[in-house]
């Protein structure tokens, strides 16, 4: 650690370990927070960033290790205790009550009370209004949180932490849902907070913005501390190397495969969003056999919805789909599976796996129509034969296929989900963020599976927010923005700049404002 940084450490964690059933989330991590600085924490999904933050904020307790706050050892058993000590956390998922007003949210569970009975709403609103003035935000304290834009909600979260006099603020992916303009606004606010001596712990996947906002950087990998550096000494490739362990090239390699005939043709796909507007609008594209088609876009661009339309999740979606020249008419998921579509959903836990079932039970779940004799009788040996072959092929690590799927690591769980879709014998494989939350080694394996499948002639549509991965694996990249197709680039032309630019089409009003 650079010498000049050592003095102003306000919070220090030493040798933090955290075990969950089946996994080691943190394995002896040291972490220091410097006063009045933006302390950046990076790592792949599943590296243990969020767990570390939860421990610092008292949401979880460490299995081993010590935490020193202003030189004194502390042990938080609840978020309330941590908040009292001045540590505020702003979660990745918004933790606001949409049905309550801004000031009610800010004073949640710490209400100002008159005579021990009534909530002093005027005082709460005044305090909130003052706070908003300090943050230079124009948000009405009486407005319902549900009526605010996402960016404004984020600010309410920050205000909530500040109202508790937090001088250490943990921000877990604060920009993931923000538009460019809102990000600029957030950064201005962070500068303001720094000037006031607030220390910030900043977690983000958007590496460029880390270089812009951060002062120090700590890299975690698979629950281990990799290194801590001063931001001014490093650059973007350095971060990537540290995160993936210096094997970026090999992990994201693309093997040669032959792109074949036209496999899938989509014409004018549209999906009306609940409450008006379109999630996907007039989208047309084609996919060749053996082609890996990447789809890039910001959150809410309609990428997941596009995959869901193909999968038959939205029966009311409009447009025409032709698979191998034949028009697809069935609009239920089970018909689409039989047609040859398979989806690997974005949220593995909630949409991909049945946690109460075994590895084998999960893998065969979508293919029972094919495995059962006359559609009725399941023979164990038929199931075992296919499952075992797949387990070998994907080098899935598991204590047998009869164990509960929840006992596997994230990467192996993802292989189960992939295995489940492969057992349906798909022609088109739809993958939504297939590498989210799995370690680097498993990522590499997932990509090599994708490569192998492409070589076998499957058409693959891959959605991921990780631009490096996307560029490495795709033959062609489509860019979506606000439901529209805003870019279609062959591999050679898909530089990071053109992708980002195309993904911001339609967001122009906000980016113009920020460049003002």
């Amino acid at each position, binding site marked *: 650690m650079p010498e000049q940084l050592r003095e102003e450490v306000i919070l220090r964690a030493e040798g933090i370990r955290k075990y969950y059933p089946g996994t080691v989330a943190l394995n002896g991590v040291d972490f220091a927070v410097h006063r009045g600085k933006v302390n950046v924490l990076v790592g792949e999904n599943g590296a243990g960033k969020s767990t570390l933050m939860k421990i610092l904020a008292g949401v979880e307790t460490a299995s081993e290790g010590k935490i020193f706050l202003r030189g004194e050892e502390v042990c938080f058993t609840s978020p309330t205790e941590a908040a009292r000590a001045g540590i505020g956390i702003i979660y990745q998922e918004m933790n606001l009550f949409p049905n309550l007003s801004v000031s009610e949210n800010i004073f949640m569970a710490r209400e100002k009370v008159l005579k021990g009975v009534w909530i002093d709403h005027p005082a709460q609103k005044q305090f909130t209004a003052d706070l908003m003035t300090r943050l230079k935000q124009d948000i009405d304290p009486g407005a319902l949180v549900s009526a605010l834009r996402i960016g404004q909600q984020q600010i309410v979260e920050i205000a909530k932490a500040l109202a508790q006099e937090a001088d250490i603020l943990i921000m877990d992916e604060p920009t993931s849902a923000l538009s460019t303009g809102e990000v600029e606004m957030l950064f201005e606010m962070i500068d303001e907070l720094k000037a006031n001596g607030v220390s910030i712990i900043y977690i983000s996947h958007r590496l460029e913005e880390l270089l812009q906002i951060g002062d120090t950087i700590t890299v975690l990998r698979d629950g281990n501390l990799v290194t801590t550096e001063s931001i001014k000494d490093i650059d973007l490739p350095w971060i990537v190397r540290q995160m993936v362990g210096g094997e970026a090239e090999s992990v994201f390699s693309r093997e040669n495969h032959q792109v074949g005939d036209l496999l899938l043709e989509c014409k004018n796909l549209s999906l009306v969003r609940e409450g008006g507007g379109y999630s996907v609008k007039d989208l047309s594209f084609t996919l060749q056999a053996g082609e890996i088609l990447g789809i890039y876009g910001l959150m809410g661009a309609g990428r997941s919805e596009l995959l869901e339309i193909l999968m038959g999740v939205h029966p009311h979606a409009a447009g025409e789909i032709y698979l191998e020249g034949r028009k697809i008419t069935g609009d239920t998921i089970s018909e689409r599976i039989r047609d040859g579509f398979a989806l690997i959903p974005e949220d593995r836990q909630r949409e991909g*796996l*049945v946690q109460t079932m075994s590895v084998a039970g999960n893998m065969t779940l979508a293919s029972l129509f094919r495995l059962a004799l006359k559609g009725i009788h399941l023979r164990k040996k038929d199931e075992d034969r296919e499952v075992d072959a797949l387990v070998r092929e994907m080098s899935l690590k598991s204590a047998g296929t009869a164990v509960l799927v929840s006992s596997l690591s994230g990467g192996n769980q993802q292989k189960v989900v992939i295995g*489940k879709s492969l057992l349906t014998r798909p022609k088109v494989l739809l993958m939504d963020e297939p590498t989210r939350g799995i370690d680097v080694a498993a990522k590499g394996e997932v990509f090599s599976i994708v490569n192998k499948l492409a070589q076998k002639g499957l058409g693959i549509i891959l959605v991921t927010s990780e631009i490096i991965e996307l560029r490495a694996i795709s033959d062609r990249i489509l860019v979506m923005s606000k439901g529209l197709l805003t870019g279609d680039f062959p591999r050679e032309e898909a530089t990071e700049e053109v992708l980002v630019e195309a993904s911001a089409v339609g967001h122009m009003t906000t980016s113009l404002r920020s460049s003002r």
Partner: protein
Amino acid sequence: MKLHNQNLSVGMILMQARTFIALFILTIAFTVILSNRGINFLSPINLVTITKHVAITAILGIGMTFVILTGGIDLSVGSIVGLCGMIAGGLIHQGLVLNSLGITIFFQVWVIILITLALGILLGLANGVIITRFGVAPFIGTLGMMYIARGLANIRSGGATFPNLQGKEALGNTGFPFLGAGKILGLPVSIWILIVMLAAAIYVSKKTPLGRHIYAIGGNSRAARLSGVKVKRITLVVYAFSGFCAAVVGLIIASQLVAAHPATGETYELSAIAAVVLGGTSLSGGIGSVGGTIIGAFVMGILGDGLVMMGVSEFWQNVIKGVVIIAAVIFDQAQQKMKARSAIASVNLERKTGREEKTA
């Protein structure tokens, strides 16, 4: 460390078989206690009697198990038992009265049985439609059906009992008591019905896509849907089957009593749920088995009959049954904790050996 782990796993096996062990201990205890009073608890006659009692709860429990496996609940089965009994009893006792034509039709018994079973399925389907089509929570939807069916059962006879269901030779509708009192190969018909339904239910749950899909829906209905499971249709089937089971029980009871009373089946839904829970099926769905439910039903049955034979008052029987149900759930949770603890222990062990390898 290793020894500790082994203790954990032995404990877990004991925990997993807890209902079976409870059943075993209960049987032994009653046998010993009652033999002191000169009663042979394990005599074939007594065992058949107990099984006849158990069959009522067990048949309802089979239907309830599937419902609970999907993460639902069916509070209406007791009332459907009552209503189906009344419909069958009415058709035998009064026949189908067509006022406009001024005639009364008497059906043969097998037709009446089919009509009654169809009615049970229909009421179950109605439950399913209310839940899947209108998005009513299963607890509320079937609670409503519980009142509706009970009300209809009373309306059918104005609250009166339909007696003398032997039927009349002249009307060609005799034979109904066979269901309740008849025997095949020395075993009562109701026990045969239980055996057949149990075998079918176990086959469906273990060996068919339908069974697998039921487990998947209860485990994670979103993931199931994305895997092509027709969640709504299967939920419908499950509630319809529960209604069918209730109709079967309604027929058996009416036949055993040779009479149909509109209050028949009150609180049966609760006994069925108790049997399912005792059998280790999770109320949140996805985990459990039909076999477990049968064991659970036997625990309740043997407890009930044993206490009766010991002369324990009905009031105390209820207290004891309540304690047993709560104890079962507490054990269940202890088992979950134990599982989590052993998982952590194995991680720690893995880590430790990993470190040792590194240092070596």
